[in-house]
């Protein structure tokens, strides 16, 4: 039996096409992936992300504990700020990538991938048990108690204040900031974050309140072109923005340095899980690198697991981790791992598709970057 989010009935009422997404029955699209993708790039879209996990880590030892468990520098977060970060194993492989928010002193919220909730919590519990200050740290897995939506696109800032009136306007949140807002007499979290490459907000509320949040966004955003969007568009949007996806670009045998997210690894921190391997990789260079590539002629869309070859077709270099026909750019593009010798921008490659090889070229990340604003 697939798990359902508190918004399942809303998806059904909208005639969404539902799929099994890592054990969750989720909308892949409502009308068309292309339409929904373009709606987010040009206007605004709302996504159900209630399947994602929420952990709370609290107590006087919380900051120090998280700083030893996660790759980014937790001490840089003031209350009300968030950061993208990763959790690694001792080999430098990625247990998960996540968002960490500091809600207050000794009060942290972790938003983790749906498919990794159980693995992540078990991993954190394991670290907690061994931690000298374990009694001053409390871990809570509250994923089932919370729902979440992402509202994304250039028009979102035009209606978010109308949807969630607050003494300090929600639209004044800076990128990666989070704030508690009163909604229907209860407190919800609103963060200026997202996974689409557009401006936008992610709203996390107690599970029973997420349907009213969804309805309120649709009502306030209607005149600004807001439409419900599925995981299909979420995937093409994040891929154009070169955001990695766990299980594709990231896994427990691939490091953040290899995946090109070393910016979120604070190697200068005293100690954290995986530090030795990551420092070594940073100093000597990793064995493989994640590259972004574009097809250079007419070809079928590149897809996950297709082989990547050297330009002359003599050497198999690696495989695609994510690929698609880009709705915004109109070309086939993707991400994949190759040896550092073939990772430089402008390196010619070939992609093998159903036995035929098609030319491609390594390009600078991301494929798409919005022109202005946050």
């Amino acid at each position: 039996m697939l798990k359902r989010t508190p918004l399942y009935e809303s998806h059904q009422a909208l005639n969404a096409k539902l799929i099994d997404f890592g054990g969750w029955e989720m909308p892949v699209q409502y009308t068309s992936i292309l339409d929904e993708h373009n709606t987010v790039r040009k206007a605004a879209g709302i996504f159900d992300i209630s399947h994602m996990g929420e952990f709370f880590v609290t107590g006087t030892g919380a900051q120090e504990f998280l700083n030893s468990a996660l790759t980014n520098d937790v001490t840089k977060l003031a209350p009300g700020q968030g950061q993208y970060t990763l959790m690694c194993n001792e080999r430098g492989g990625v247990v998960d990538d996540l968002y960490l928010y500091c809600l207050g002193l000794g009060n942290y919220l972790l938003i983790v991938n749906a498919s990794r909730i159980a693995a992540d919590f078990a991993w954190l519990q394991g670290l907690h048990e061994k931690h000298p200050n374990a009694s001053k740290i409390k871990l809570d897995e509250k994923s089932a108690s919370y729902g979440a939506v992402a509202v994304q696109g250039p028009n979102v800032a035009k209606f978010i204040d109308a949807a969630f009136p607050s003494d300090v306007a929600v639209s004044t949140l800076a990128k990666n900031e989070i704030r508690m807002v009163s909604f229907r007499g209860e407190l919800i979290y609103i963060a200026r974050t997202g996974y689409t490459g557009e401006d936008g907000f992610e709203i996390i509320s107690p599970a029973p309140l997420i349907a009213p949040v969804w309805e309120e966004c649709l009502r306030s955003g209607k005149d600004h072109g807001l439409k419900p969007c599925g995981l299909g568009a979420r995937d093409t949007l994040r891929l154009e923005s070169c955001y990695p996806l766990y299980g594709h670009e990231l896994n427990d045998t691939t490091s953040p340095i290899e995946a090109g997210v070393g910016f979120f690894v604070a190697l200068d921190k005293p100690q954290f899980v995986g530090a030795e391997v990551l420092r070594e990789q940073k100093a000597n260079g990793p064995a493989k690198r994640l590259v972004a590539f574009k097809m250079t002629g007419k070809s079928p869309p590149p897809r996950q697991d297709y082989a990547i070859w050297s330009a002359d077709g003599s050497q198999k270099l690696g495989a695609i981790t994510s690929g698609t026909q880009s709705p915004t750019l109109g070309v086939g593009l993707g991400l994949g791992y190759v040896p550092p010798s073939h990772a430089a921008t402008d390196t010619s490659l070939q992609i093998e598709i159903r036995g035929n090889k098609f030319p491609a070229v390594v390009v600078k990340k991301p494929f798409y970057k919005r022109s202005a604003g946050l």
Partner: protein
Amino acid sequence: MSSKVPSDLRYAKTHEWVRVAGEYATIGITDHAQHELTDVVFVELPKQGRALKAGESCAVVESVKTASDIYTPISGEVTAINDAVVANPALVNTDPYGEGWFFKIKLTNPAEAQNLLSAEDYGKQVNA
């Protein structure tokens, strides 16, 4: 949502349609198939002159999310392919039974058409 199933065509369980005209037939994918695939972004068709056996995988249709094999429902030699649908794959979504056709073949054995589903039977399969 009910899919269109024109009454003058024959169908395969695998969601291809066949329009038989004497010794020739036109083949494409059904309204139900295009709806399930969603936005078609690439179509790969068999070469002209290729001899196909009923049930043989001979074309690929790709949506944003997936690549799907297309099987010829009937045997014959490919006499024409639809260049328009190769240039503009969205025709599969907008007009699956018209401008979105895939290829034409000269039938090896026109009697094979009798093995295919009627519109009524195919309609029962997809609109149940």
